[in-house]
């Protein structure tokens, strides 16, 4: 399956799960900030991805829980370099470039874009 084909399916899932217009969903759209996703929507998206691509997603594999609030990796409201390294290890499908410039812990949720989902599914399908 090509990246474009994966994107098309992911877009259909997001239109359904988040009640957004197809035109609103771009590769760089942030799930929370741009598309209005809330915590329960992440579970909905995981369920729908599993069904649409016949893949199995473990708990916390796509969206880790408590990543922005772990006291070992957050200092003064910012994720520490150690924390970022750990997150990168756990989340190879996430692009950290923008986050690293201003790693505020409150912005961890903004790491998850449509591209994150596409890359995650790509990785899963290759396995």
């Amino acid at each position, binding site marked *: 399956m090509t990246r474009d084909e994966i994107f098309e399916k992911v877009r259909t899932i997001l239109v*359904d799960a988040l009640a957004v217009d197809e035109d609103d969903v771009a590769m760089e759209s942030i799930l929370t900030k741009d598309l209005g996703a809330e*915590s*329960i929507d992440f*579970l*909905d998206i995981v*369920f729908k991805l599993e*069904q649409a691509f016949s893949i199995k997603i473990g*708990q916390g594999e796509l969206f880790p829980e*408590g990543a922005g609030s772990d006291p070992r990796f957050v200092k003064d409201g910012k994720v520490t370099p150690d924390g970022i390294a750990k997150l990168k290890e756990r989340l190879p499908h996430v692009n950290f470039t923008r986050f690293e410039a201003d790693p505020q812990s409150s912005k961890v949720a903004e790491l998850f874009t449509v591209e994150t989902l596409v890359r995650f599914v790509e990785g899963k399908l290759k396995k």
Partner: protein
Amino acid sequence: MRWMWIDRVVELVPAQRLVAIKHVSMAEEHLHDHFAASGSHAAQPIMPMSLIVEGMAQTAGIMVGHAEQFRHKVILAKVSKAEVREDATPGCTLRYTATMERMDATGASTRGVVELCSPELGREGAGGSFREVGTIDLMFSHLDNNMQGLAFPEHNFVFGEGFKTLLRMSGVIQ
């Protein structure tokens, strides 16, 4: 008012499917306000859509809770889709069929079909047969696994006495 919006569980296939019925009665107080007579408009008692959604949520919620022996606090988290095309009026019976779409430690998603048996003669569905009038798809969260730092009581406040009575009357529990 007791917050029970189904009268009886009539079928249960554990973790897969649960069917419940709700008889709509003129004795229910809220029907006198929904909608009361106003000016030249006569009263029009109709089961509120929000309570039909709640009825399906109770139907599906019991299925989700039963799948794990009611160990989790099962909370309605999202109404993914709700469409009901006909009004349920006093004398009608609603039948809710919930099926499990997906379930894991954090929650569950369910699909639901709403059927109506109305007493009007000469209509499809009269005389005891049901016709499909809508769908309600839902998502549930297992509160214990999604607390996000919030504290909730230890006891299972979701499946309280009202639910236990209903489940006992329906033969689901002893």
